[in-house]
């Protein structure tokens, strides 16, 4: 049973560039949430996708956008990268729109220089 997978594992970008991160949910899950985890901090909720729509959003600017595909996989896009966007980006999946019992992927480590 495949768990949550994310790609790439590591990424280095320059300030001002754009980045796309990808996530495949655990088998049987239809909801994907994205989190940003800065060094030494807990994950911060970015947004959640269910039925290909953004259902919930945390306190992140519009530079952060996403998409969910019919196969439930998801992308996180970040435009106009800032140095402060350097973090571990985590994807979590669960069944249904309720975030109860989420399973996390290993994350994508983004470094902005």
């Amino acid at each position, binding site marked *: 049973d495949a768990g*949550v997978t994310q790609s790439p594992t590591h990424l280095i970008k320059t300030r001002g560039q754009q980045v796309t991160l990808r996530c495949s949910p655990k088998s049987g899950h239809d909801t994907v*949430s994205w*989190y940003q985890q800065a060094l*030494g*901090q*807990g*994950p*911060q*909720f970015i947004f*959640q996708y269910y039925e290909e729509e953004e259902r*919930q959003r*945390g306190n992140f600017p519009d530079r952060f956008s996403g998409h969910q595909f019919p196969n439930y996989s998801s992308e996180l896009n970040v435009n106009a990268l800032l140095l402060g966007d350097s973090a571990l980006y*985590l994807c*979590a999946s669960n069944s249904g729109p*309720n*975030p*109860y*019992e*989420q*399973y*996390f*992927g*290993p*994350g994508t*480590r983004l470094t902005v220089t």
Partner: protein
Amino acid sequence: TQLLEQSPQFLSIQEGENLTVYCNSSSVFSSLQWYRQEPGEGPVLLVTVVTGGEVKKLKRLTFQFGDARKDSSLHITAAQPGDTGLYLCAGERNDMRFGAGTRLTVKP
């Protein structure tokens, strides 16, 4: 300001000792989860507590949800080096809000 405050931030103990870490908030949550995260990996779900006053045991780990569903504790008995990691609590309201975590080191 974190919605969930975890304490202590750091804890270093010897193998065999007992410990308790805390997760506190002024907000009520419909459920609360505990995760353990190791370097370079995503958090791994340990337990979910839903009912106020609920106690769950997972081998040497005991989790308690406060009566008012605002706080929780994690107690580890006879800690082992394999327990080393970042312990995160997360409360569910409309979304999941995480604390900053307790970084536990268990020395052999």
